[in-house]
């Protein structure tokens, strides 16, 4: 009899609405925890959003969030790797990482991630895994519920209409434009992600066999040859003749604001509008994409295997996926990062929060954003960055 009850209990605990109960437990445990959220800290607006989200979670769940500002996400990955090597299997110093692409692939490959857990987070059910494929496949690598999506990103170009009447519509068109306007374009120096994305965008348009990019990097020299030929032609026509590069997106935007360049890059379709509203870009700046589409991906947060405050990190991640946090984030005056949720499926009042948002003066509508190109396999990133450094960053 006792065995039967135990068996029944075990059965129930699997099939009962396990989620809600487990999640309550998570929330209970999370209270009072201190979460070190390692996130890229190079953008003031994003930092402000992270601070806001931390305050919300503090007020609602008693979880304290400290933003550890990284110059590059790989720093946090390196710390977890080092901790694993040193045998620190719990009490790690990183609780939550803003991550995607090759950093996620590396952590997943080396079993450095906690989970799978995202399906347990109540707000995950609103995530649009149907139409936003990149919420489940990160740079061709299956997410497997090891990281929680919290923002959509699409590669876009910004141009100052005071200097650019008709923006180019393709990567080759950009070269033509640069010939007519030497010194007015540049991209952040790889391995900065925006700069690397520019390389990938160019590669996608120039590569002979695009399918090769969706698989682990192979025949690298052949596949990338057109890219290097393109860059060899482009660099002498760039800002500072390609001898100096801005180090990241905000630096590039500053060049656009100063009028040093006329075309800049962004990974957030609404960023131009937000920066105009803040007086950090002239109101003549607009956004454009290329005819064949631009690269799009999803931003995630993941929890390292040895995180000290896993529950707190999960609560934070769940809050980041909430309609409220997502709508706040999509507001161009706050950040302007598009939601990962399926707005149609949301409760009415949450839906309204999204529908009341204005796009902003320089933001393209989802229709105008056009086709989303998939990110190449992460192994291409390392190959491109290494070759780029060899060709363009090893002195004369």
């Amino acid at each position, binding site marked *: 009899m006792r065995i039967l009850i135990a068996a029944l209990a075990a059965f129930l605990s699997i099939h009962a609405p396990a989620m809600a109960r487990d999640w309550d437990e998570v929330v209970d445990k999370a209270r009072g925890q201190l979460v*070190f959220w390692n996130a890229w800290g190079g*953008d003031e607006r994003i930092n402000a959003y992270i601070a806001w989200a931390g305050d919300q979670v503090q007020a609602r769940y008693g979880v304290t969030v400290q933003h550890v500002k990284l110059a590059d996400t790989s720093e946090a990955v390196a710390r977890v790797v080092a901790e694993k090597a040193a045998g620190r299997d719990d009490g790690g110093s990183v609780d939550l990482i803003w991550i995607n692409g090759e950093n996620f692939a590396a952590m997943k490959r080396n079993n450095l991630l906690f989970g799978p857990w995202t399906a347990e987070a109540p707000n995950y059910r609103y995530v649009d895994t149907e139409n936003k494929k990149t919420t489940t496949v990160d740079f061709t690598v299956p997410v497997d519920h090891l990281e929680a999506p919290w923002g959509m990103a699409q590669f876009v170009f910004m141009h100052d209409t005071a200097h650019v009447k008709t923006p180019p519509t393709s990567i080759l068109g950009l070269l033509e434009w640069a010939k007519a306007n030497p010194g007015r374009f540049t991209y952040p120096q790889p391995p900065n992600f925006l700069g690397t994305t520019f390389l990938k965008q160019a590669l996608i348009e120039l590569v002979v066999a695009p399918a090769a990019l969706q698989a682990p990097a192979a025949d690298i020299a052949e596949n990338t040859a057109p890219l290097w030929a393109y860059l060899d032609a482009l660099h002498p026509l760039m800002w500072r003749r390609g001898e*100096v590069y801005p180090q990241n997106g905000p630096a590039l935007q500053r060049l656009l604001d100063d009028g040093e360049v006329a075309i800049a890059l962004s990974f957030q379709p609404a960023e131009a509008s937000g920066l105009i509203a803040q007086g950090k870009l002239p109101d003549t700046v607009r956004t454009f994409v290329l005819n064949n589409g631009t690269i799009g991906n999803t931003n995630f947060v993941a929890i390292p295997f040895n995180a000290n405050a896993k529950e707190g990190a999960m609560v934070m991640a769940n809050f980041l996926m909430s309609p409220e946090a997502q709508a706040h984030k999509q507001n161009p005056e706050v950040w302007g990062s598009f939601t990962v949720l399926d707005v149609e499926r949301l409760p009415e009042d949450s839906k309204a929060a999204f529908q009341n948002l204005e796009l902003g003066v320089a933001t393209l509508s989802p229709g105008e954003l056009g086709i989303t190109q998939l990110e190449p396999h992460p192994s291409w990133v390392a190959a491109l960055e290494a070759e780029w450094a060899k060709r363009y960053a090893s002195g004369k």
Partner: protein
Amino acid sequence: MVTLLLLLGPVVAGLLGTVLPAFGYLPALGRATFSMAPWQALFASPGVAESIRLSFVTGLAVTALSFTVVILFVAGWHGTRSFAWVQKLLSPLLSVPHVTVAFGLAFLLAPSGWIFRLTSPWLTGYDRPPDLIIVQDPDGLALIAGLVVKEIPFLFLMTLAAIGQVDAARVRTMARTMGYGAIAAWLKAVFPLVYRQIRLPVFAVLAFAASAVDVSVVLAPSTPPPLAVQLVRWFNDPDLALRFVASAGALVQLGLVVAAIFVWWLGEHVVACLGRIWIRAGSRGRRDFPLRIVAAVALSASFLAAFLGLASMALWSIAGRWRFPDPLPSQLSVNAWTANADRLTTATVNTATIGIAAALVGLALTVGCLENEARFGRRATNRALLLLYVPLLVPQIAFLFGTQILLVLSDLDGAWIAVAWAHLVFVLPYVFLSLADPYRAWDERYARAALCLGASPVRVFCRVKLPMLLRPILVATAVGFTVSMGQYLPTLFAGAGRIDTLTTEAVSLASGADRRAIGAYALLQMTLPFIAFGLAAAAPAWLFRNRRGLLVTA
């Protein structure tokens, strides 16, 4: 003894923690065999030769330039009214962190900087910033300029201190009466005495300029960057194999500094030989007016650039819209302050608490050493002084790698106390150097008199010596505080990215972000030392408001 251990312990242990991985040995990362692979990987990595060349040339160029300007200026103008005036400008510049000055210079000189804004389009004809490579130029000229501007005040101060010790005024007057021109008199008679005293500071400048990371992030080229910057990148790479490469590179960085010092030492000998010939020739060098002007112009230009740069950052911190080529912001806004209020506060609190702690501990250790020396008559030898300089001569990056491993192993990384200790290693030498002379110069007869009146040694120390030395003690503490403020790499490595100070925050914004935010951090970086030195000056004045004797002697 304890002081030395606290000071050199981390350096030696850290160096060891760098040497072993450089040869492939780091059991914590699962490598327990020695190999040369890190070295092969290091020399195979693209651009490393250029990185090394850049660091080497920068170190020597910065030292030679700032040294020449300082020596020529002091030689040409010592004892004049303008000299006293320049002396007054010294401390504000000295107390501002390197990276702040570097930012200021970038804000000032870049094609979209203030100078072009002030002169465009009416003078230059530009309505958009010209496409000129000024900042981050591949030859590193901007980097050299940025470091020179900051090292001139430092060498200047060190030269002033040395002059005080060698009775330069009388020697110079003697030479002048023999008919030598101002510069010739000083160079021939005073310089040989002074140089011996400032040799270690000169080496410290050389070591710093060849391995600075924070200034390089702002002003140095990035294709490729100077060696130290590249090393930090490798160290932070998720690919652990690169840590071994970084460790090997850190030893190259150390060798590079040693080599640069060796080249300087050769130069010393050449200059000494030529100098002796020049002295023996007996030329009076009376027509040195043009040279004096050149020295004055060079020095004023560097001071002016630094101050204008700082001013432009202060302006940016309250700028709203400020498009090129407007000479001034078209709107003002406190947004940079309000939007960053939390982070500015955290960083300021961290900076202040760590700085105060490091300065006070450094002060206690220094006073302990000096008091010990005074009571037992053990005078620090030149060799001991050299030990004090070790943390300033060994490139930080060469031992911080190793130190960080030790901190991780002892679970101290990212702790406030670890950062404070790391700062102490660099704070202590400066506190010692600034306090040693006044402390040793204190007239022991006061103590003897007090002892004869029946006071205990402790009472003598507390009631007589400390009050009389209060002013130099407070100044030394303020110096320690500002040294702590400026530390970038030690904060980064010991703090594991968790402890943000004004300097780390500013550098993390460096590579681009908003000038307004950088301006806000920079303004605080200027304000804190100002407060520290202000307190150091005001406290004795207030405490001794009815002790006229103490006011005068200090």
